[in-house]
Each structure stands twice: as C-alpha cells, then as structure tokens.
C-alpha cells in the first residue's frame, strides 16, 4: 500500500464528516490505510452537532432496547478514557415524579443491571442534594453513569487524529457522482464549493457515512436505503441550571432529558416524522417550544424562569430494517450494509443508524469490513488509544506546565482542547485578549483554529471554539472573529458575507424563543451591527423562519 501513487488515489474514501465519518477515518488511518474524508459542508453539521450531547449510560434504552443499552454503556466507559477533554463525568439521575408510575422504577433498574449499567436507587433527598435543581416533588430517583459529551470537540479530535495518521480531509466538498466501473464503485467526483472546482478521487472502497443524507449517496451507487427522518427539537438555556443529567424515569417520551453541556444546559427532545425533502431545512415551531418548556419545567422547575438562548432541531437518521418489506420497522441500532452482498455493488459500503454514543463502534465495524475487503489483518485500537488532547485530563496540571499564571481564558482553552491547548500560542497580551467574551475564547485560540482545524468561516469557527455560542450569540465576538478571518483569507468581501450569514444563523436559533432578555439582546445586537458597524443587506432579516 505504501508505494508511490497519484495524489488522488486512496485506499478508502469516506463520505460524510459527521462523527461516524470522522471516527471511521480515524480508525482506517490508524490501521495504516490511505484515507480521504469528504464532507459537503463543515464537520459535524448534521445530526452529530444537533443533539443533546448526552453521554448515554444506556439506561434510557435499557427497558426497550437491551442491545442498544449494552452498546451504550460499553462505549460510555471507552469514551471516558479516550475522549476525556470531550466528556464531562456528571452522573445522571432518573427521577420519578408524582404523575409517573413508581412501579416502572423496579423494572427500569432491573433492565439496567441486566445490561451492565450500574443503576442505583437513591433516596429522593439524596437526589436533591446531588442535583439541587431537580424537581423537589420527586418521589423516586435512580443514579446512573450518564455524562455529557461535546460532539463538535469529539468530531474535531477524531479528524485531527485521522490527519495525524496521514488522512486527507476535504470540507465544503460535495460528492456529485460515484464513479462506477462495471459493478464496482471506484471513486467519487467532488465539487469544492470554495475553490469552485471539480475533481475526481479514486479508491477501491467508498464508505457511505452520510447519515440521513446517506440515502442520496446510496442512490448514486444504485442502492436503496430507506431512511425515516425524525426531527428532534431542543432548547439551549443561558447557563448551567444542573450539573447532573436529569431524566424522567418512565417510558422514553418528549422533553425528558436535561443535559448540562459546557456553559449551558439543554432540554430535549421532541420527535416528529418529517418528509425526506425537508431534511435540509429544519426549524423549530412554537408548539415544540411550548412542549419543551412544559415538560422541562417538570424536571427542573427553575427552567421556567431561566433565559433561553436559542432553539434548534436535528434529524435522527433512522433506517428501515432490510427484512421488512413495508419499511415500517425501524432499526434503532447500528446498520452496516455491504452493498456487494446486498445489492451486487462492489467497493461500496454504508454505515448508518446508530447514535453519537456508538460512533466508535460503528467506525470499528465499518473499518473491519473495509479491511476485510482489502485483505488487511490489522486490529482496531481505537478503544484504548486516547484522542489528541485527551492524553491528560487535569486542566490545572496542563495549565501549570505551560503558563506561569493561568487565567480563566487559559483554562477555558484547555477545557475545550485538552492537552492540544499546549500548541496554542497564548503568551503575549494580544494572544490572550478575548475574541469571544462569553465563552472566553482568545485571539490565540482563534488563530489556532483557523490554521489547524479546517475553519473556513465563522460558523466553522463556532463549532471548533464556541465563539458566538455564549449569552450574546455573536453580538460582540462575531465582528472581531470576522476581522481575523478576513486577515487569514485576505478578503474583506467574503468575510462581510460570512458575517451576515453568521448573524442570520444565530438569529434563526433565537427567533423561536425571542422574548424577554433574548429579545433585548437581539435588538442590541442589531443596533451594533446595523447601527454601529453599518452592516446592512437584504439578508439581514431572515424570512425563512415563519
């Protein structure tokens, strides 16, 4: 494999820069394959970046789906070791409220234990001590090893490691065609939205990791995968109300999980089927917001009086099982399709279904199949090799190694990048000055992201660093970050449009919850950008959010 080859020839091409694609790229690269990862937008733009960020213990699935529960708890324990800087070991509670059936608790605990999940019934008073924001009326509580995981960081860390192992990553590159020779897929044709150029890449195997959009990729190959897009809406609150994941101890339903994630917390989700044609245009309705608030308030009453920063929705990539001709029977587990045996299409496999939690296992399965097809006997090592940044988890220890007097911006940087923060220049006053004040993102960190983390615009930058994710939603930081991007790209016009897009993207999330302080904030932002900065244009008012 190591012989000299042309630049556009690889061992494996992976389509889709979500967590599954990133994980598969890492695994393949670690096993010595020449990897090309292709993403049509930015990394983690689909379902990967649009969920709870819950490090499932598996307890939620224990009663209804034993297999998923077992996968979750195994992967949960692995991620705690390999992705320390992406994971917060918060613990979780499943609380029973007076309106719930306390009888469910026994069945729940029994199922958890059977799946290998350490579920422990605790006294409601102890539960309130553990998480003071929980509804004080709770009548039962079970402690489980839930946690929080940052999907953007996790994806980025997988991509970094893939690249460290020689993988090539192309973002903003859309697969327009699969190249077919006879019954074999031999490569892809790609259109790069930034360079506006098309190119061809070749590999004996192409992996479809396109999530919900994988249906289209499969169609290009001539295969059919029946996806059932299910929309899930979530609300982001302005600060952490809880430090322990709160779940309702009942059959999984709407808005029954409250997850603390970095500086915020999230309530979700709803679940509604949407036509496939709408998957690129997700928005949150007023009814969904009401539902999330109504149910969220039951988990933690203070949510009723906590500022909401924004609302967003994602699409779960649910897949119809192959053995059900009606297509109604949905698989919740991992779906690995070898299109050679299934459809007679060689050199093409699809990895789909599954969850953020099981991405590593999905990647392992997919990579095993790739290796089998390429006759490579290397074993998977992703379950015990820490991701870049996770070599050391102690923030204070890391910061003391590097800086004499680490301040909050230094510590925040380490919190986001783990040990990789040591590569970030934060020496002089300019480097440590802040771009994003709410999340404490420094000039040095933004420079690092632009130079090393495939950042092409402000939205990408947000996913890598949390610039613009804080209370002000870009009010103070977007223009500063735009200035740095303009320097990096040497193009003011491009950055001006980027800034408009970014502000509109922030507004899209604020619109469904735009009252009270969020409304004041958006008015103030508008005043800054149109009044002070003179940023005007037809796109300034987004009409798509009816």
């Amino acid at each position, binding site marked *: 494999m190591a012989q000299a080859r042309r630049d556009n020839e690889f061992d494996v091409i992976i389509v889709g820069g979500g967590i599954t694609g990133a994980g598969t790229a890492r695994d393949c690269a670690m096993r010595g394959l020449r990897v090309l990862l292709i993403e049509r937008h930015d990394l983690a733009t689909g379902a990967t970046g649009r969920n709870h960020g819950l490090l499932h213990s598996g307890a939620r699935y224990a009663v209804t789906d034993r297999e998923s529960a077992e996968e979750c708890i195994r992967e949960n324990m692995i991620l705690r070791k390999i992705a320390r800087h992406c994971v917060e070991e918060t613990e979780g509670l499943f609380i029973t409220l007076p309106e719930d059936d306390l009888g469910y608790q026994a069945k729940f605990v029994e199922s958890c234990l059977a799946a290998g999940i350490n579920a422990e019934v605790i006294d409601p008073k102890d539960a309130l001590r553990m998480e003071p924001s929980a509804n004080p009326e709770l009548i039962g509580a079970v402690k489980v090893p839930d946690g929080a995981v940052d999907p953007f960081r996790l994806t980025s860390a997988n991509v970094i490691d893939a690249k460290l192992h020689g993988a090539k990553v192309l973002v903003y590159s859309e697969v327009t065609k699969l190249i077919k020779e006879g019954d074999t897929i031999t490569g892809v044709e790609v259109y790069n939205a930034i360079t506006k150029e098309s190119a061809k890449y070749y590999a004996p195997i192409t992996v479809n990791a396109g999530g919900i959009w994988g249906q289209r990729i499969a169609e290009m190959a001539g295969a059919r995968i029946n996806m059932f897009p299910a929309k899930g809406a979530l609300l982001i609150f302005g*600060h952490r109300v809880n430090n322990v994941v709160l779940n309702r101890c009942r059959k999984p339903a709407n808005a029954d999980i409250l997850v603390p994630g970095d500086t915020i917390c999230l309530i979700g989700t709803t679940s509604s089927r949407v036509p496939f044609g709408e998957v690129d245009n997700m928005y949150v309705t007023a009814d969904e917001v009401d539902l999330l608030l109504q149910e969220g308030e039951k988990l933690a009453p203070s949510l009723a*009086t906590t500022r909401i920063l924004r609302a967003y929705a994602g699409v779960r990539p649910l897949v119809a099982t192959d053995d059900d001709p009606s297509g109604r029977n949905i698989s919740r587990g991992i779906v690995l399709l070898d299109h050679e045996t299934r459809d007679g299409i060689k050199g093409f496999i699809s990895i789909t279904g599954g969850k953020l939690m099981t991405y590593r296992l999905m990647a392992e399965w997919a990579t095993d199949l790739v290796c089998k097809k390429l006759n490579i006997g290397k074993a998977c090592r992703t379950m015990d090799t820490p991701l870049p940044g996770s070599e050391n988890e102690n923030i204070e220890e890391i910061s003391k190694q590097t800086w004499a007097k680490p301040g909050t911006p230094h510590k925040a940087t380490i919190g986001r990048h783990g040990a990789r923060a040591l590569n970030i220049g934060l020496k002089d006053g300019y480097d440590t000055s802040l771009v994003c004040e709410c999340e404490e993102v420094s000039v040095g960190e933004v420079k690092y992201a632009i130079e090393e983390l495939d950042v092409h615009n402000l939205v990408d930058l947000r996913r890598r660093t949390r610039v613009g994710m804080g209370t002000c939603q870009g009010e103070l930081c977007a223009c500063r970050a735009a200035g740095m991007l303009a320097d990096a790209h040497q193009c003011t016009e491009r950055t001006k449009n980027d800034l408009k897009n970014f502000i509109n993207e922030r507004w899209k999330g604020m619109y469904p919850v735009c009252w009270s302080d969020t409304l004041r904030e958006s008015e*103030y932002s508008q005043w800054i950008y149109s009044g002070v900065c003179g940023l005007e244009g037809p796109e300034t008012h987004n009409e798509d959010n009816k």
Partner: protein
Amino acid sequence: MNMQEKNISANNFEQCIKCTVCTVYCPVVPVNPLYPGPKQAGPDGERLRLKKGIYFDDTLKYCMNCKRCEVACPSGVRIGDIIQAARLKYNTQPPKLRDMILASTDLMGSIATKAAPIVNMTVGMKPVKAAMDGVLGIDKHRTFPKYSSRTFEKWFNKNVKAFQESFNRHVSFFHGCFVNYNYPQLGKDLVSVMNSIGYGVHLLDKEKCCGVALISNGMTDRARKNAAINLESIRKSVNERQMPVIGTSSTCSFTLRDEYPHLLGINNEDVRDYIELASRFIYRIVDEGKVKLVFKKDYKARIAYHTPCHMEKLGWGIFSTELLRMIPGAEVTVLESNCCGIAGTYGFKKENYHVSQAIGKPLFEQINKLRPDFVACDCETCKWQIEMSTEYAVKNPISVLAEALDLVATSEANK
C-alpha cells in the same frame, strides 16, 4: 403556569445583555490591566464557574466592591455581588495574617483604644511602617487612623445615656467601629444634633462590626456571626421599641441593608427599611415638616461633597447634599462622581497602593482645584484617603450640621 414570564437567576446575571457599560464605569479597569473588568469577572465568568470551580480567576481580588458597575448597569444585574459571591465561594486561599488584622476592625479597636497614645505613636513611626510594609504587606505610605483612648460607647454611657429617655421620639444609633474606636466626636455630634431636634439616641443592645471588611477579606463565618448579633439587636430596637436604626457611615448602612442578604444570604427583609443613614433620616423628617433646623447666623463654609461609592449604590447622596444646602451660609459643590480608591481595607494592602492612588487621582485633583474650606463625605475610609492625599480635612455631614446648627435655638424650635 408562569413559564418564562420572568427570567430570574441568582443576582440577575442572566439579564446581562453584554452592553459592557459596567466595565466602562469600573474604576479599576483603567488603572489595573490585570483586572478583567466587571463584565468578564461577573456575569461572563459566572457561566464558566457554574461549570466548574477551577475556572475561578484569582484576579477577581482586584475588585474593590465599590458597586459602581451595578449603578451603571441598565439591566439590574448585581455584578458586584456576583464577583464578591464568587470570591467567597471559590477562593480556596486562607486569608493572610495581614488581611485578618485589617478586617478585624472591632477586635483591633478594642485592644488599641486601651493603649491609644502608644499605638498611635507606634504605627506612625517610620521603622514600624517599614516593618508593616515588609512583613505584613500594609503599604508604608498609609497613615493609620488614630485610635481614641476612650470608646464612644463609654463616653455615651457615662455622659448622655441617662437623659435620652426624656425625649418624646427615639432612634437607635449604629455607630460602627470608626465612631467607637477612632473618632467618637462624630458620635457626639450625632447625639447633639438628634437631641436638638427632639430625638433621644440609644445604643443597640449589642453592636458588632457590620462585617464589611470581613466579607471583603473572605472571612464570612465571622461576618455571619456579627450579622446575627447585629440583626437580633436591630430587630429588638425596631420591633419591640419602635426605634428605627440610623448610622453615620454609608458603608455600614449599606452592609446592614444589602450585603447581608446578597452576600451572606441572611434575610433582613423585615427590618431593612428601618435601617438608614442619619443624613437621609434628618432630611426626610425636615422635609415632612416634623422638625425644624435653626442655623447659626454667622456660619459660612465652602463645602465640597464627595459621594462615596456605596452612597452612589444606595442612591442617597442627594439627601446629604440637600441637607448641607439647607445651611444658609454653606456653598456646596458636589464633586464629580469618582471613587477615591481606598475601598475600605483594599487600599491599605501594599499590592493595591498604586492602583488605589491612581483611581483617586482625578478626585484629588478636582478637590485641589476647587480649594474648598473642607470636604464633606459620609464614609470614614474615603475620609482617610482624601485627608492623606489632599491637604483638606473631611467632615461627615452630621458633624457639619452640628457645627452649623444653633443647637439651643433648634432645641427650642422642636419642643
């Protein structure tokens, strides 16, 4: 369902819309680049601290707790409280010996008054100042307030207590450490002014230091003990004897009213409205026509009034200046609102000395330019700072009133 009608978070920090006007009004920001400013130290930093205590930043110690950020905030965010509460909650460093000495105002006072002449002389000596600077970290440029050889309480009990019952109306006086140990004359002035307008003055059953210095030096357990004792006495005064509690120190009054509930988590709702500053109390009863003030015919003074930061926060500066303006011979100039830089024990600390003087500089310059007869101010630490940094004496408005009033005629008018 009252969902989302109000967004209430601790100290209203979620109401911050990041306008940053607090940082513009912070006196520390322009002179100390190490301080991240109230917005970042307060509502911004709080979100990270809620995630994990390790995000606490040591530089929060540069906050003087002047609360000017809160006065400036258009959204009602209690920024100063957020910062102070974070210091109390997350700072793991035990207080230094120096801080314990500076904060223990009543303990040090009760020891020092017993040997006042020796103490006053000793702490004024250059070698002692040098030693305190080097060993303790109390800046050598500082002049320690002089201790009185007899406390105000002793004077009160011996000389005036007996006839206070003879008045028809009554108030309790929270004298504070400064009046008791350093400057009993202010307490004496208050008694003569209140007596002249027909009010008997009483001490609380038990009075401890309000605790402001304990709070700012992180000794909350002791502050809470003091608060409990003070509030018990205040409740007795207000509820059992129907006597409101007045003070002559803006900071003590502010602490009793606002820092107790906000920083110590002690509920004082039932008595809070009955704790006020003597100048506001007197202004109010004069304005309501309940009492009359008769001034000396020949009193003349050019007075520059400095509004202490906590007075700005209380919004009570107007009562002191309007009271002073009632004096026919007084020409009152209100100085531009500017922190004097001392902030209680803050300015005594060696590491803060230069910042402290830099903050106060515009104020000192304005006073020097104005050349008043003296400066009036409701805060004792501002007094020390201004007297040390300018050539002008600083008097409490109550002392000015005592000088300007024709006490005999006033007594007659209020019989």
